[in-house]
């Protein structure tokens, strides 16, 4: 697991992005201070999900209002598809992501 920042760096009900060699990851904090990480690319047209409005455990994509579940990465609603989720945890206020490339390092 790789530390990417502190919980306090993300305002509740918002997201921020983490750049990696394998593409961007959106890291989100809910109103009840849970943290989720998902691929930062909307399955619809590639919108940056970390810029969307966070509500409950979902985020609405800023480009065309697709709603994505933060916990499963799936599109909410009738459409099929979704994004990958990334293992994520908070220890003593620090956010860690489970990144394959880092495990190897």
């Amino acid at each position, binding site marked *: 697991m*790789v530390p*990417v*920042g502190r919980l306090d*760096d*993300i*305002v*509740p*009900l*918002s997201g*921020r*992005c*983490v*750049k*990696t*060699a394998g593409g*961007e990851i959106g*890291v989100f904090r809910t*109103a*009840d201070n849970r943290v989720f990480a998902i691929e930062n690319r909307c399955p619809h*047209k*590639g*919108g*940056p999900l970390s*810029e*969307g*409005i*966070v*509500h*409950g455990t*979902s985020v*609405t994509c*800023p*480009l065309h*209002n697709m*709603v994505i579940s933060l916990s499963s990465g799936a599109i909410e609603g009738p459409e099929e598809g979704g994004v990958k989720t990334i293992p994520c945890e908070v220890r003593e206020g620090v*956010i860690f992501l489970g*990144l394959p*490339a*880092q495990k190897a*390092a």
Partner: protein
Amino acid sequence: MDKKRLVVIGNGMAPGRVLERLFEAAPDLYDVTIFNAEPRVNYDRIMLSPVLSGEKTYDDIIIHDETWYADREITLHRGKRVDEIDREQKRVVAADGTAAEYDTLLIATGSNPFVIPVPGHDLPGVVTYRDLEDVEAMIAAAKPGGRRAVVIGGGLLGLEAAAGLAARGMAVTVVHLADTLMERQLDPAAGYLLEKEVASRGITILTKANTEKILGDEHVTAVALKDGTTVLADLVVMAVGIRPAAALAKAAGLDVGRGIIVDDGLRTSDPSIFAVGECVEHRGACYGLVAPLYEMASVIADQLAGGNREYAGSVTSTKLKVTGIDLFSAGDFAEGDDREDIVLRDAALGVYKRVVLSENRVKGVVLYGDTADGAWYFQMLKDGTDVTELRDTLIFGQQYSGGAQLDPTAAVAALPADAEICGCNGICKSRIVDAIGEKSLKTIADVRTHTKASASCGSCTGLVEQLLTLTLGDAYNPLAVEPMCGCTNLGHDDVRRLIKVKGLKTIPAVMQELEWSTANGCAKCRPALNYYLVCDWPDEYADDYQSRFINERAHANIQKDGTYSVVPRMWGGQTSSKELRAIADVVDKYDIPTVKVTGGQRIDMLGIQKEDLPAVWADLGKAGFVSGHAYAKGLRTVKTCVGTDWCRFGTQDSTGLGVRIEKFMWGSWTPAKVKMGVSGCPRNCAEATCKDVGVVCVDSGYEIHYAGAAGLDIKGTEVLCIVKTEDEALETIVALVQMYREQGRYLERIYKWARRIGYDEVKRQIADDPARRKYYFDRFVFSQRFAQVDPWAERVEARENPAALPQQHAEYRPLADLSIREAAE
């Protein structure tokens, strides 16, 4: 042709309705004279309860005002009680000697409240509940708050009186003879739920309570019951029932039983005398509810106009007009061998529904807590519909019956033309549908004005809206009733109203108080709520950035590839070499791929990385640029032509006015974007007549335009007014926008808002009412004190001093950049 003389004794709702229908059908047939024992015009007696509780005033419940009588040349004798009918001479004489001769007489003397003849019943402080005088007496008694009232009678009227007095602050006890409340209309189970609800409002209920006497010397002090209980009272309301007022008819020698006996044509035993309303006995039945009286009224109006319609008696239904209690009952629900019951209870929701069937036909229905299907059951009851096919799902209501779809209008579509929609005013479906078509009605308010449907108690508003939807299709704006989003049942207007009424000043407070069904809303409601709170509490509300769309959060426009575009403000569309040079330098420095001139006379730089935004703004800021708000639901641009400065046709300084408007209004948030234009002459080079707000300068002054559109819809503007000076033009435009800010629904452009509330209304408030205009203007000015902060400068500052503004700083940076490290490894 000489008009025939129609004399009416009584001026309540029933004769009022007779005359209304008669003048519609045959306006020139009769000279009408009315004798009214009460000193006033016709008012809506069934709305006395809201007057008592303070929810309405007398003015609100007037059915026919002075003009109505004047327009029809009706002679109205007020405060004159007729005490003799001379059938030989065909004339009536009032107590003060006023007389009138008739060709046809209509008796509508109504009913008298029944007073139990117990000792003390005539003490001061004992009132009945029948007319406005009674209500005024009750309100007066309640005035020094906290006094005690006893209501004798736990029926419909008694409970409404009790609720009204409790709302006025009195401690109320209801004394009721039977085991459960409203036992004539409700079964014991519904009676129990009702008792629980009424008791929860602080009203004490005593059932099986028989009044022995009313105590007091000069004024009532208490009520003594037969079981020995004494209840203290400063006011006693007798609401134990009514008796037809038939004494006058009896004295005139007409046939009278319990009431004045009439045939199916509603004629009394004297063929030139009709009777209508609560004073009537028809086929052995007397009625005290408004719907049957209105049915009788239609028949009489038809007979008077030369028709031959007949009255066959009424099946009645009951609704309780106490705010917050939903209760409906109709028909007969006594148990019996041939009766079958279908019952649905939901204790948590406080819902009880019972439908009584006999031979697969609805005989009775009691609904408590959810009365939406009352009209449906009632129609089947009246029609004697065979419900064999529906039985399995009957109790779940119309939407679930017969595998029907969940489209709520389907239920209304299925109702027959003569189905009653508005029980208070006796308006059937076809009458509403016809009126919508013939008179081009567009809104609930229109329907109320033209048909009176839903104008009284309002419980049929939903049905009327569905009829509007059915009849008009897309032309009826369903937003009027549509919830804001899936998180609430409330529409935008209700939410806006409640935010103000309840003084809600944060998004969590709104969601808590208005019972949002989700923890923190959704991407639809949160931006709307954030706007409403910014607009309503400009000095107190702390803007919630997490409830704004990315463009308003980042102060730039997101593009399809996740980059942003930046549009600096160019006041009135004017720029300079210094500004253009600064833009050129920024474009080179940050390698901006596209530069484009916009439709609003601005320069757009596209394809900027998010992380570069604060630096771009820092450079632009040095040249004097501020944010152009090209991303905002707010004031965008004021487009101008060159006006008198250069143009040989210009009539006024259009550029100057445009700059002035823009400098005054920049930074303000609005329900949807606002684009303006100022043209220096009617050639209109600034295209002001398709803008949200536009000005067309003319020699004599400034034409103020608004409600144009040139996007999804194309629409020319409406002219609001012409003003003489620039100052007046500014004040008018600012007031107009403030009115829109306070009333518009989120994302509703000015042209849609104006069409919804009416151009006349906008004109009335902004152009014709200087005080109102000033009020809006001042509120806008106040709001601007908190809005005119350049967001770009703030973020440039955050870049230079991240510790002071961490959030603004963090917004533009990734949480972490692991790509470089990974690449290095």
